[in-house]
């Protein structure tokens, strides 16, 4: 099977982009799943078997694939700022865009809808019946058309959930949930921690599972991602359900309390240290405490998970000044009911229900790690004073293992870096801040976006070393 499934299948997780980013939401393609677009509730069944990247419009019988794919979404006027003033001689100021400019009444439009006139045709009719349209600037014409299209001919884009799309979706719609982690910062963490096949990656993920999922995706069913946590309750990592992780990949996600890993490390006695805090594989730590039928068992993916649910358990998110919009205000009405839907049993690698993420690692694994160390470390605990537990984490790594620590604040990383410099536990220490800028590239209108995400967080990276002169133990 190909590395990346290119079509949606029954039971998979999908990301729907409605009206060009106006709304973004994750859904599971169960037979009962629906999405509400405008005031219409549409079944998601038409998506099954369709390629990711397909565009759908809303017809009388629900979602209909568009004849062709998104018609250059990129040509739409992205900026309101400079567009009109630049190349135009027509001036909007003389126009009054009141209702009298439109000759079609809302009754007319309703009648067209009843007659089965398509949304695109309604938009054309609106344009034809606008007395001011011809006098608008090209820029304003595009804007007018887009606005009417969104209202009368909404489009649904089927997207494949991946680290990129999941991270971008949360950052756009619910950034506090994922500690404001921008995709470029997440990308840097994965590179700096040398995440690749057969890695044993130790992760502190207090960003909802975004990092754990991203690492699992990169491992591709090899190696391990060990999600560790402070205290006795694991952090929620339920975002991993948004990824279409196969069963191979899901079983590579394990969870263990930091105290367990440390005591194992210190005692050198694997089984005893382990069992104190982890009760083995029989009794799993509750990775994803959501209101599921099986609350303690995270599914590889789950049904439509708008953030009203996930928002509630955001203990790890730090205070922000502006209340964040929910990931999707329009909860899929049938969301919760779809859990009892049948999984596909056609041999696809998408994990059946019985395979779980977030088990405790086996004693053999724990023993291996205590002897060889983890091959890298990623910390994403934006609300925490990282210095205090980095001192506990680093000894769990093999020598020469790289690590990367993400934070919202600079000073805690500076303090941490300084103490690592003093302790000589690490070298190649560096604090960096990614600075990402997006551009509008259009003929005669090329410039950086007028609005930017000015902040992508800070990352402290380095390499754990052995600084003693006689290091004959392998770790």
């Amino acid at each position, binding site marked *: 099977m*190909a*590395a*990346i499934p*290119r079509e949606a299948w029954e039971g998979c997780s999908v990301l729907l982009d409605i009206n060009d980013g106006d709304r973004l939401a994750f859904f599971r393609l169960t037979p009962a799943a629906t999405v509400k677009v405008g005031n219409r509730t549409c079944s998601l069944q038409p998506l099954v078997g369709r390629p*990711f*990247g*397909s565009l759908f419009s809303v017809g009388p019988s629900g979602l209909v*694939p568009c004849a062709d794919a*998104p018609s*250059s979404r*990129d*040509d739409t006027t992205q900026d309101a700022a400079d567009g009109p003033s630049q190349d135009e001689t027509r001036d909007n100021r003389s126009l009054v865009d009141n209702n009298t400019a439109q000759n079609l009444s809302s009754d007319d439009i309703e009648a067209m809808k009843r007659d089965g006139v398509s949304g695109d045709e309604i938009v054309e009719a609106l344009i034809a019946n606008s007395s001011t349209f011809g006098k608008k600037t090209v820029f304003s014409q595009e804007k007018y058309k887009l606005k009417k299209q969104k209202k009368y001919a909404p489009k649904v884009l089927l997207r494949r959930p991946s680290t*990129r799309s999941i991270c971008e979706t949360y950052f756009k719609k619910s950034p506090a949930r994922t500690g404001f982690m921008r*995709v*470029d910062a*997440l*990308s*840097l963490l*994965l*590179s*700096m921690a040398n995440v*690749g*096949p*057969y*890695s*044993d990656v130790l992760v502190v993920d207090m960003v909802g599972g975004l990092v754990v999922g991203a690492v699992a995706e990169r491992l*591709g069913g*090899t190696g391990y991602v060990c999600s560790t946590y402070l205290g006795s309750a694991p952090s929620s990592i339920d975002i991993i359900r948004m990824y279409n992780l196969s069963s191979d990949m899901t079983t590579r996600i394990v969870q263990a309390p930091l105290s367990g890993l440390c005591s194992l490390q210190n005692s050198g006695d694997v089984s005893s240290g382990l069992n104190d805090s982890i009760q083995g594989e029989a009794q799993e730590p509750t990775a994803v405490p959501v209101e599921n039928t099986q609350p303690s068992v995270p599914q590889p993916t789950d049904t439509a998970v708008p953030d009203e649910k996930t928002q509630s358990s955001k203990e790890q998110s730090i205070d922000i000044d502006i209340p964040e919009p929910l990931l999707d205000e329009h909860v899929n009405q049938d969301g919760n009911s779809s859990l009892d839907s049948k999984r596909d049993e056609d041999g696809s690698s998408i994990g059946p229900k019985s395979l779980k993420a977030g088990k405790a690692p086996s004693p053999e694994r724990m023993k291996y790690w205590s002897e060889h*160390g983890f091959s*890298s470390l990623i910390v994403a605990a934006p609300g925490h004073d990282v210095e205090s537990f980095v001192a506990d984490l680093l000894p769990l790594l*093999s020598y*020469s293992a*790289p690590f990367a620590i993400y934070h919202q604040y*600079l000073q805690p990383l*500076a303090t941490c*870096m*300084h*103490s690592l410099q003093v302790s000589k536990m690490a*070298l190649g220490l*560096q*604090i*960096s*801040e*990614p*600075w*990402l*800028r997006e*551009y*509008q*590239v259009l*003929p005669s209108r*090329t410039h*950086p976006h007028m609005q930017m995400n000015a902040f992508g967080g800070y990352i402290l990276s380095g*390499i754990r*070393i*052995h600084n003693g*002169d006689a290091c004959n*133990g*392998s*770790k």
Partner: protein
Amino acid sequence: MMVPLDPSSKPTSQRRIAEGDTVVVYERHDAMRAVAVRPGAVLQNRFGVFRHDDWIGRPFGCKVHSAASAGGGGARGGKGKGGGFVHLLAPTPELWTLVLSHRTQILYLADISLVVSYLELVPGCLVLESGTGSGSLTTSLARAVAPHGRVCTFDFHDQRAASAREDFERNGLTSIITVAVRDIQGQGFPEEHTGAADAVFLDLPQPWLAIPSAGTMLKQDGVLCSFSPCIEQVQRACEAMRSCFTDIRTFEILLRTYEVREGGLKGATTNEESNAVPLAQKKRKLLAAAETLDVKQNSSVMVRPCSTARGHTGYLTFARLRVHGN
């Protein structure tokens, strides 16, 4: 081996150094080099003379000292500086980017990591790259698609391709990376990859010439990336992408680095005459008392941006192959 390729091979950092390994010898953050470990060989640098034999069997990440009695021929200089040491690190694509020989301008960490993420590479993918250049990106692409995926990289420059191939061999990546000599701008990608690539990366002076071919190679919804230093190249590339691609987005990514130092600022007290304003003075004394304790803690760690930085590397334009409806 920079990237473990089968279940029996451990991540390098979990192993001990063995004959034939490539180690990254770390002198300072700006002084590193890749060294192949050969029995009997010595490394000589400003910190002394180091015997490879002393390294074998020790874990990666260890600290090694220069030989007290410099063996072999090249002893000169070693003794004088006596007691120097270096660290031996396991090679990673990130370290490789810092030590490789620059045959061309290379991509660095920030661009590389964004490219790998935005191309949505996972193990098993097929990715096409042109040009190979110095292989800085190629190595990271290989890690992302390993163990079962493939990187097919092309460069029109004979010697450059050969040097890259040597590097990939040295790093144990030949089963993942295929290097071919080909003028992608002129000839496009080979037909054998038609409709088979999950992602295509272009670093070419005239990317617009290769974009139609890239569209032919990609699977539906597959991602293309074009890297160009100049905006004019981006403008023409975007123009060329519009016919077959969607979701065209151009980014620039920079890394700002920070420097950390210990020690506080000059307080006003040190400079101020004692007959200054009483009220402010009182406050200052309180603060001074607190600071004494403070110094023992951490608030004396100061951090600020480094003053010079790479100001521009290039623009990254990503696009998706448009999916055709029916």
